[in-house]
């Protein structure tokens, strides 16, 4: 690490400026909107203070959708990282056809959310879905299970679909991180340590920890703010079983045309996400932040 005394603006501004355009300005706009009464039907935009927040938090939907979002995030983010790690470790092996599998693992990644949704509706469909057909053939179930229309199962079903779409990215980055480990370290480890579990714990894990943290944070974020896949699969139903907090933004803004309330929900989502990311980076100190302090 070398020190530069002046802020290196020419190196950073190309990256920071577009991101600021995507965040600072819209957030400021949303903050202003969340404090005013902004409805298409009523002209004039009077200042209403925290009324929008009060109305949103006390609404019937809020508690359900917040719980759903948290459960969904806690289900999806660790699953993606663990499954991604298992697959990445496995794909280190060389065997006949390993190249084919490496490519096929990427398949879910190339698909826009709406397409993945259709594929998984097809898997979970109660009458002609492949999952029920398979379970029936194996004799495990007598009647078809309504995966997407049962309030108990729907959230888990959409979580599986979401995990499916997020795994390839985790695998790619973890394989790159695994490949970047010094091969001499690995050879020394193979000699000193016979147990593969211990070898992972003491040799591989410290090397890829920063990548795991990045992935966990990223996946918590995508899960907490995802909407298109889940929305396309269930439309938030049955009832409110799969209504996520991020839908509420959409619902308040574009189906109730109450942009003030929509922005208020957006702000709550941003705040919770911020708590989440800080908690995760604190819980797992990594070399990602080493040397950040001047």
């Amino acid at each position, binding site marked *: 690490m070398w020190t530069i005394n002046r802020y290196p603006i020419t190196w950073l501004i*190309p990256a920071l400026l577009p991101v600021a355009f995507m965040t600072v300005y819209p957030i400021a706009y949303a903050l202003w909107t969340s404090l005013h009464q902004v409805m298409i039907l009523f002209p004039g935009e009077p200042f209403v203070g925290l009324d929008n927040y009060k109305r949103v938090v006390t609404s019937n939907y809020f508690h359900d959708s917040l719980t759903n979002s948290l459960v969904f995030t806690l289900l999806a983010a660790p699953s993606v990282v663990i499954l991604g790690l298992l697959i990445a470790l496995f794909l280190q*092996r060389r065997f006949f056809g390993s190249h084919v599998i490496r490519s096929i693992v990427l398949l879910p990644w190339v698909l826009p959310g*709406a397409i993945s949704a259709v594929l998984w509706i*097809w898997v979970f469909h109660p009458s002609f879905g492949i999952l029920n057909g398979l379970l029936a053939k194996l004799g495990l179930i007598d009647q078809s299970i309504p995966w997407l229309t049962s309030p108990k199962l729907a959230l888990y079903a959409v979580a599986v679909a979401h995990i499916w779409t997020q795994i390839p990215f985790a695998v790619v980055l973890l394989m790159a991180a695994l490949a970047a480990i010094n091969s001499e*370290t690995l050879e020394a480890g193979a000699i000193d340590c016979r147990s593969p579990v211990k070898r992972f714990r003491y040799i591989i894990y410290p090397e890829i920890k920063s990548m795991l943290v990045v992935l966990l944070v990223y996946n918590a974020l995508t899960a907490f703010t995802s909407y298109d896949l889940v929305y396309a699969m269930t439309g938030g139903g049955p009832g409110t079983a799969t209504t996520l907090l991020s839908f509420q933004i959409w619902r308040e803004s574009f189906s109730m045309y109450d942009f003030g309330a929509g922005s208020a929900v957006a702000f709550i*989502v941003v705040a919770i996400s911020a708590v989440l990311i800080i908690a995760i980076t604190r819980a797992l100190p990594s070399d990602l932040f080493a040397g950040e302090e001047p």
Partner: protein
Amino acid sequence: MNQRYNPVATFVFAALILLFTGGPVLLSLVGSLVPDRVLLDPKIGLFDQGINFQNYRYVFTGQLPDAYLTADANRAMISDAARQIPRSLWNSTVIALSSMALNLLLGAPAAFLFARYVFPGKKLSFMFLILSPLVPTVALVTPIYMTLQAAGLVGTQWGIILVHTAKALPFTVLILSVFFRKMPSELFEAAMLDHCSRFQAFYRIALPLALPSIGATGLFAFMLSYSEYMFSMVLSGDAQTRPVSVVMAALARNTDVSWSLLNTGIFIAIIPTLLLVVLIWRFVVEDLLRGSVKG
């Protein structure tokens, strides 16, 4: 490492991975090759009526599949929207490639600085980059749409490219800086002794060595753009400029479209990216495994 693996366990695990990741896509391939009535009727075996490529022919030439020309066929099940797919694939490719190039161009210098230098305001800038993708997309759409409309970019591909670039940049910088930090610092110390400027150290040493990682990161930017839906939908104009995610979502939400035609669209949308992914993945992985980037 010459380790012996249990071949049975390897096979079982490989089969499980294939089934989980490839299974739903395989279903859509099968679905695109057989007529609807076979898919929806459990009494007819999947391949009893043979397979055909007529849905694919329809998408590219407009010639209707035979299954829809019979007397009692429901003609509403076939949608003109499917014919927009070839054009939308080209649009998506242009947008995603531009966004990828812009990402690497704008992001690599910043990532290099974050990885190897200490400067005032570093932590603040880095936190800003990490925290910015937190903002839910739904909350951003309205203000950004209004700004781009004022700039006259709505309905053009430039608006979408700009937004996709900005959306992927935090991740590009984050991932690249992890890779740049993994490089041995002796290299840069040697460069310093040889009186390399900061730019020369970046351009002549860091960039060539990190090329595989840069490829992997570019791939990510490409994919993010290719599959992004919300901004593409809001910012794209007529059918001529629409990217594939928008066209596919319209098809998927149209409950009248036949399953076979929908599956055909899905599969056509997969093929070109799959080719690209396989190529870059091979190139990237083989370079990585050859050890050109050493920790």
